[in-house]
């Protein structure tokens, strides 16, 4: 018995240590990142990323953990942000003294309050009805934000100055890098609490209600209350993200609570993978990179994001994190190495297909909008003349050949994946 007890304690201790290590490593990474990416643009991107991470995770508290599909989550992000912006303004006007670095919390409380009000009737049902109410509320608030000028500031929005409040450790948030550390701390705290929430009975019941509301009712839980709790928590963290947005950009407009923002957070969470806690984090990082970096290269980035999103919905409903997690069994069996060669064979055809498609799309797009007389453009660092048939032929050939080879090689790769992940395959004896 004592042996069992000690091994038990040892494994728990090791597990606890491992769990703790994840957070410590995350904190260290957040601390080191600005030392690696020092440029102003990188800091801007990382700030945006942090805000997106909190926002996307809060969204997944509903969609992934609670099974509630919302088309209006930007409402709580925006309202929290507007409230935080007003707080910053009030501090600036010296109505009262309040540390600026805590305003996201106030934004969160405002988001929580609004979620409580709206959730009190919208969480009665999940599924289509909930989605429709969220859409209606989203449109309602977005339209109201242009009418109620006192709170929303109309078309030009509300702006302020984040540097006037009492600082912390001598930081006054004059520079973006100071804001980065502020956001990093908030992200870490918010992510930690969202993770802890998913481990509480309330978080677990949210999963139960998502999977089978009827049985959850029979166990004695009101599905409505369980949903309302998740909904309010999601509203709270969305409000925090909004507050961080207010500090980072010092302006909030109607755009921050309209349907585009609501759709964006759905895209982030879904592309990342709604079935895993870290899914939305992955999604937020990638989406922000696409939004900031890719948009510098091409006007078509939204089209690419749309294609990726639809492909995810159709073929990989578990998202990018799901693809990574698929390889965990192979890793446990120590056969990850057997997948390297098959995957490498796929690299060339997929790259060909990708280059061909992107080239065609970009040329078509550029030809449509090109000023008259302009016949040259740059695709993949190569300058091409889009009136001559050669580049069109090359890109079409790349697309067709890449597509054909991908189709030809896919079954073999799928087979080696099967072999690497199943216990009974020949691989186990080798």
């Amino acid at each position, binding site marked *: 018995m004592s042996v069992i007890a000690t091994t038990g304690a040892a494994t728990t201790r090791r597990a606890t240590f491992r769990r703790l290590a994840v957070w410590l490593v995350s904190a260290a990474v957040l601390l080191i990142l600005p030392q690696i990416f020092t440029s102003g643009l990188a800091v801007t991107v990382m700030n945006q990323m942090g805000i997106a991470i909190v926002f996307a995770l809060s969204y997944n508290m509903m*969609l992934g953990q609670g*099974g509630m*599909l919302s*088309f209006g989550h930007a409402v709580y992000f925006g309202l929290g942000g507007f409230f935080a912006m007003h707080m910053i303004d009030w501090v600036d006007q010296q109505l009262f003294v309040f540390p600026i670095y805590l305003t996201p919390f106030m934004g969160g409380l405002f988001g929580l309050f609004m979620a409580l009000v709206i959730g009190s*009737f*919208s969480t*009665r*049902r999940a*599924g*289509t*009805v909930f*989605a*429709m*109410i969220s*859409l*209606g*509320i989203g*449109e*309602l608030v977005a*339209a*109201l934000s242009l*009418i*109620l*000028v*006192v709170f929303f500031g109309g078309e030009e929005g509300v702006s302020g100055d984040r540097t006037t409040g009492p600082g912390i450790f001598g930081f006054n948030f004059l520079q973006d890098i100071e804001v980065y550390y502020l956001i990093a701390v908030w992200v870490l705290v918010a992510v930690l609490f969202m993770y802890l929430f998913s481990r509480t009975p309330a978080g677990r019941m949210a999963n139960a209600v998502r999977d089978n509301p009827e049985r959850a009712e029979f166990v004695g839980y009101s599905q409505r209350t369980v949903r309302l709790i998740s909904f309010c928590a999601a509203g709270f963290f969305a409000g925090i993200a909004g507050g961080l947005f207010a500090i980072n950009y010092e302006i909030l407009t109607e755009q921050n609570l309209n*349907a585009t923002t609501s*759709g964006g957070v*759905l*895209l982030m969470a*879904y592309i990342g993978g709604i079935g895993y806690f870290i899914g939305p984090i992955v999604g937020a990082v990638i989406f922000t990179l696409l939004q900031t970096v890719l948009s510098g290269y091409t006007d*078509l980035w*939204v*089209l690419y994001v*749309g*294609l990726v*999103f*639809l492909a995810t*919905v*159709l073929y990989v*409903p578990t998202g990018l994190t799901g693809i990574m997690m698929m390889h965990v069994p192979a890793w446990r069996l120590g056969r990850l190495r057997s997948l390297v060669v098959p995957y490498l064979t796929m690299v060339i055809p997929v790259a060909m297909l990708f280059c061909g498609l992107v080239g065609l*799309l970009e040329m*078509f*797009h550029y030809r*449509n*909008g090109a000023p008259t007389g302009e016949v040259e453009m740059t695709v993949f660092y190569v300058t091409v003349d889009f009136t001559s048939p050669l580049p069109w032929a090359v890109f079409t050939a790349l697309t067709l050949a890449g597509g054909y080879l991908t189709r030809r090689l896919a079954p073999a790769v799928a087979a080696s994946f099967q072999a690497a992940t199943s216990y009974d395959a020949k691989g186990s004896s080798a």
Partner: protein
Amino acid sequence: MFELILFSILNGLVYGLLLFMLSSGLTLIFSMMGVLNFAHASFYMLGAYFAFTMSGYIGFFPALIIAPIIAGLLGALVERYGLRHVHRYGHVAELIFTFGLAFLIEEVVQFFWGKQLQDYRVPEVLDFTFFEMFGNAFPAYKAFMLLVSIAIFVLLFAVLTRSRVGMIIQAAITHPNIVAMLGHNVPFIFMATFGVGSALAAIAGVIAGPVLGTGPAMAFELGTIVFVVVVFGGLGSLSGAFVASIMIGLIQTVAVALDVSVSDFFGLFGMSFSPDDFLVDVWTITLPQIAPIIPYLMLVLMLIFRPQGLMGKRES
């Protein structure tokens, strides 16, 4: 006052019947497959863009026939290769799929036609004043829209209630398994319904494009209103969709025409408000200002108090 009411009612009918052309297809698709098609209004947009491009080559009236056919075929493809594939992941995944599709179609339309509004005009044959009353003109094109929508409405009603095909469709909604047992190809019926619904939306797009504007935002603008109509009327109820379409059409047009504010209303009772009140925004709101949000307000109130909608039988 009389001419205001008359013209508002006429315009409201035109708009309401247009909404019905979209909401009827959406309702049919919902009752069959249980999925609210987010991309429905995208086919409305595709219809308008197709007709705009085609009318440059073959004229407006051939485009009125051909554009919806192409959109309908596209819709059938979407059902066959998209929706049916996602079906296994459940309703939420289907809803997300149609959302993604709507997103993508908007981007694709911008890819081919650009972000700007298209110069899609009323055909010259119909570009004259139909009648004039109290100095207000009623354009012939609106009369044409009214005519087309009524014709579609009558046709749809006749097909659904009087024909064999309509009976099979109605049976497939409630008892798909038994219909399949009787030897009908139910998946094909689903695909065809989706296609016809998309084609109906495209017809609406073809005739509404010149009046409401043909741009990449048109799908989302009208799409959310159509959602409101379908949910307000009761999910899966055609008659509910009809009543709600006409209601919302009338309310929105009348609200735009009546220029009164909240303080005017209170003014009737002899109350007035100072302009530097904190709630000044609320008192100076005029009816045309809130006209765009009335449908959403109606939707939210309906879902709170009567989640099954006006004539719906089930809640989700």
